[in-house]
Structure formats: C-alpha cells, structure tokens
C-alpha cells in the first residue's frame, strides 16, 4: 500500500536558506532540524561543523553546504537598495559607470580601472 509516484519540478542546483532549530547525532551523522519558512526538514550538517542552532545555512538535497554570513547578506541588501536611487541625477552613462566602479563591492574601489 502507499504510492511511490514521482513528480515533476525538483530542481537540482537549487539550494535554499533555512534556520537550524535543533541538532542531534543520528547514525554517526550530525543531523539538524532546519526551518525553511515554517517547513521543517532533517538536514545533514556534517559539512558545516561551524553551524550551530540559530544559524542560517544553505541546504541542497538534504545537506547543508555553507553557513550564511548574515552580516554580509544585510550589507549586500543595503547596497542593492542604494542602487539607482541617485539615477535621476545622472547626466549620462559615464557618470553611472564611474560611480559603479567606485562602489565598495568593486575590486577597484578608487575608480582607477577606467576604460583604456
């Protein structure tokens, strides 16, 4: 009894963020209960020994692959929020380019890498 049917739509490169709400050892593996927006699944935490209860982690096919750097996430969002806010003041593309090139996330913060 019981259906073991398949279904469509499971994306494989998809890793989603979740919050670790409990950790226990099971069969020699460090397993966590991870909360994905109200849905909880058991996840193997063996690859992220630094992840503790309360941390966020990215999970793919039942395995945590990386701890989410929450400070970095918030910093990135803040940068995104700032984008285009000054757009109305721009004269043309060059200014936008220069401003973007000097944005903190650029590896060329002093804007010296201008077009040759």
């Amino acid at each position, binding site marked *: *009894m*019981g*259906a*073991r*049917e*398949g*279904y*469509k*739509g*499971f*994306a494989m490169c*998809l890793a*989603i963020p979740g919050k670790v709400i409990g950790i226990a050892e099971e069969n020699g593996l460090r397993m966590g*209960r991870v909360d*994905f*927006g*109200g*849905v*909880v*699944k058991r996840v193997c935490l063996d690859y992220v020994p630094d992840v503790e209860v309360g941390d966020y982690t990215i999970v793919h096919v039942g395995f945590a692959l990386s701890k989410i750097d929450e400070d970095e996430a918030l910093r990135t969002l803040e940068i995104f929020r700032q984008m285009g806010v000054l757009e109305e003041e721009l004269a043309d593309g060059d200014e936008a380019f220069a401003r973007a090139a000097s944005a903190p996330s650029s590896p060329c913060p002093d804007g010296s890498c201008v077009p040759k």
Partner: protein
Amino acid sequence: MPEIAKPETPDVGATDLSKGAPDFSSWSCPLPLVGYPTIVMGHGGGGKLGNELVEHLFLPAFRNAALESLGDAAVLNLPSGRLAMSTDSFVVQPLFFPGGSIGELAVNGTVNDLAVSGAAPKFLSASFILEEGFPLAQLAAMVEAMAAAAATAGVQIVTGDTKVVERGHGDGCYINTAGIGVLREGIQVGPNRAKPGDAILVSGMIGDHGMAIMSVREGLEFESQIRSDCAALNGMIGEVLDAAGLAVHAMRDPTRGGLASTLNEIAQASGVGITIDEARLPVRTEVQSACELLGLDPVYVANEGKAVFFVAAEAAEQVLAVLKAHPLGRDAAVIGHVTAEHKGMLVARTAMGANRVIAQQIGEQLPRIC
C-alpha cells in the same frame, strides 16, 4: 435535516484514527472477523457480511429515510426545475492526511462540482472499492468523516455500493461519489462564459491541499502546519450568487492542476486571454516555503476548498465583500482580469514587473492528490 446517529460529531477535516474499531458486540459476524477486524472478500459479496457493513456502519452514519429503505435504488422527492449531476472518483494517497481523509474529499469534491455549476447539492451516492485486509477501524473513521461532511454541506448520502478486491489489487480504498443538485434560477454560469473585462477572484489561499499531501508523501515528507483546505463550498457560493446573480459568468474549483489549470481551461473554453498579478495571489507562507523546498509552483498545486469566480467588473467589489464575510472566504482576493488579447493564454505579471506565460500543466505534477 437527517439525524445522524453517532456518539460524537468529529471535526470535519480532522479524521480521528485514535477512536479504534467500532463496537462489534451487536454484530453477528463470524468469530474470526470480530477477532480480526479487517475487510474480507465476503464484505463485497452482497450476502450476510455485506449486509453487516450496511446495517452497522453505513446506515447509522448516513442515516436518512431514502437510505433506510435499502432498495436497489433510492427513491427521492426533488423540487421541480433543472437538475445537475456530477461524479468523481477518489484515489488519494495516503488515505489520511493533515486536515482530512479520502472520505471528506469524496463528499466535498462532488458537492463542490455541483455548486460551481450553479446547483444546490441535494443527494449523493457513495461507492467503495476496498482491498481485502483493509482495517475496519479506518473504514469506520472515514465513514464518520463523510457523514459529518455531508451534514455540514446539507446533503444526504442515499445510496451506495461496496466491492472488495483481493489483497494487492487495490490501494486500500477507492471511493466514487455521484451527486444530484437543483439548478438555481436566475443565473447563467459556464466555462465558456467569461468575457473580456471580467474580474477574476479566488476565495482564499492556494496550494494548501496539495502540499498537505506532499508533507506525508513517502520519500518527501516534511514537518509543517499545512492542512488540507477540504471543505464544502455550496454555502459560500450560494451567498455569492444571491448577491451577484447574473454578474457571475463562470465558477470553478481548482482541484488537480491547481489554479493555473483552471484558468487555462476557462481561457480556452471562453476564447479569451487572462492576466493575473502574481503579487495578489494569496499563498500561505508555509505553502510557499514547502513549494520552494520541493521545487514546485503554488499555481499548479491542488486545492479542495477554494473557488475561482469570473464576474462582471462592476460586481467585483460586492463579490469580494461577500466572500470575505464568509468563514471559507476570509482570504479572498481579486487576482486579475479577462482580456481580449492573447486568447487562450494565461499571462502573469511577476513580482519583477515582467510578464510570463503560465502554461497548461503537462501531465500530473502531483499524482494521487484526490
């Protein structure tokens, strides 16, 4: 209203398996059956064992005059007017899931098909195909849930049948229900009646039922508070029709294939295009999360207690108010409108502000959902 004779009324949508087997002391079943309360081949044979099931299980649960006459057919008094008839078979797996069981699905599914056709549901038949070895306790729990669902919907289960197949030849239990309803005067609804300019409303959160099933589906289980939305919609639909009458052009309950399939079907049947705004679709957070987890899209996930309405634009506000005032429609929303462009196609405006076509689902995304 028929009097349902049973000790307590279970909360419809919370089938209680802990009640255990029915009290067999008054049955005259042969000793082995009382000792091992499961379905045997004889229960489908139309003989003494089969009659035991009717007398001690179905009749007390569904009690009504038409059923009790135990004829080969139920004799019914129907008001004059046009009738609507519908049938559906239910093969959901697992049989019991958060928020309900195959029993309530079987009753509410047919009730809803009649209701969205503009009919007041009145009478149902219920046929069971049981697998040899199926626990009687589960059958009893299912039947009680059906009785409660029928009472809530205001319908009577007036005739039925039971067959049994050998172990290994049926997944526990399949149920078929057929229903008769009386069409309301003063309305004209049909999937081919949607018109450009019509507003499209959905009565509440989408995707609950399908994801409730997935949460207990072997191999994919997850913990959540998601429960099936299985419910009889005839009361709510009746209020909408009372208020808006001829302004309601089409109605449907988006079961298998979800909202996307229903909207595609109506777009094609009516020869119109449909545009919806993804930001306006009501989706429960946990359902959205579960869909992310499993790589599914809520617009394709089945519902068992929701209705979609196509109404003339000027009646949209009124219909929305009626829905929101009803317990089953609190999360109702206007989600889009009908257009004369891109005929036969469903187009959605995404949160990004871009447009995407939501295609008709190919095949079964989630099999054995209802």
